[in-house]
């Protein structure tokens, strides 16, 4: 608790589905061709953040 939940920037998301396929909680799904996090299910593991190829999910940023 208290940890930030994953959040998808709908403008950046290119709907590749990668985040959805790895989320251990099945907290992600495609809504209107953009990935969407179901907050109640998200455990803030950040797996989806790290795997997004275009950095569309918020959290730490690789530079």
């Amino acid at each position, binding site marked *: 608790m208290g940890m930030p939940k994953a959040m998808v920037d709908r403008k950046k998301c290119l709907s590749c*589905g990668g985040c959805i*396929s790895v989320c251990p909680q099945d907290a992600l799904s495609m809504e209107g061709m953009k990935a969407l996090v179901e907050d109640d299910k998200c455990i803030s593991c950040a797996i989806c953040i790290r795997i997004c190829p275009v950095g569309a999910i918020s959290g730490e940023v690789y530079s």
Partner: protein
Amino acid sequence: MKYDCVVVGSGPAGSITARFAAKTGAKVLIIERRQEVGVPVLCGEGISKKIDEWNMLESRRWIAGDMEGARIYSPDRTCVTLSAEQAGNETGYVVYRDIFDQELARLAARDGAKIMMNTQATDLLKDKDKIKGVKVKHFDEEFEIEADIVVGADGVESKIGKWAGINTTLKPKDLETCAQYTLTNIDCKDAYCDFYLGKQIAPGGYVWVFPKGKDVANVGIGILASLSESGMAKKLLDNFIANEPRLQKGEPIRFLAGAVPVTNPVETTVQDNLLLVGDAARHVDPITGGGLTHCLEGGKIAGETIGMAVEKQQFDQETLSVYETGWKEAFAKKIKRNYMVKEILLDMDDKTLNMLADSLKDVKFDEISTLGLIKALVLKHPTLLMRLRPLMKVSKEV
């Protein structure tokens, strides 16, 4: 109206399954959440010429380029060249995936399948535990579609399997996360698909350049998701292009993100009233990331199995398992073997990759069989024997 079979997803796996099921007279509906089949394209667009023998496509409009072979560059740019026959597997044609997918959908419709666009499956329709169809959303309208068989052809992010209780969640080490530009204004000097390896270039994956004409190519990257950080795939691809003289002047006409499962196939792809095909069943080659040929091969078996089940009016797991036996015979061993190869390759550092490329660069292979390759390598590098031994055992069987 009740259907014999509802197929979720109009990708190659869905369209082929629907077509071969519809051919037998079964009432088949494809539902697709997109507004245009095949768009956006999420693919490197390379495919083996094996598909010519299968006669599953009629026009040739989907071909962008006919390849002469492939080149693999090690981290220090030692080049191993494979002719078309050798490269065999994934580089034969470079295609227009949007046209390719639409052609497959057209043929499914011609053989009797119905197609409903802008329609997203939101859950399975169940009566107690029995699957009776799918719940869908069509714009703001929600309704149910009844069918005796539901086919999950919903790609890498597949939910159909999960809704049915099949664990299809990928581990990050079993996913390649991808980005790709279609670059124009570049010089594709010849019709070769190029692959670039190296920890700095693409950790746990590779960069590819697949020509679609004289001055246009798909330039993409896949990196292992377990080695990825946020936005890393795109950044490494941008770096590669900036440092590659023949690509520097390129201008993008398309950009895409992608995700490729590089894992063992889903063990149980059939249940009572349900079947998984294509990426949803993880039917992708774990080394190359190629999935198209398996979609066609597996989809045909799935469609014929559905036809048989509808004929008998039996939709239990045992009846549908004809599909599972079929795809396992057709390509399960190859995928499992290549999964082992993937794991071994991942363990190799850049130095080892350079050394391998150096030993292979002049070898003339009659045929790139895994066993032949291993023998050639072990002759030159006896120390590799230990690492490759498990592979030699399975390669003898494939």
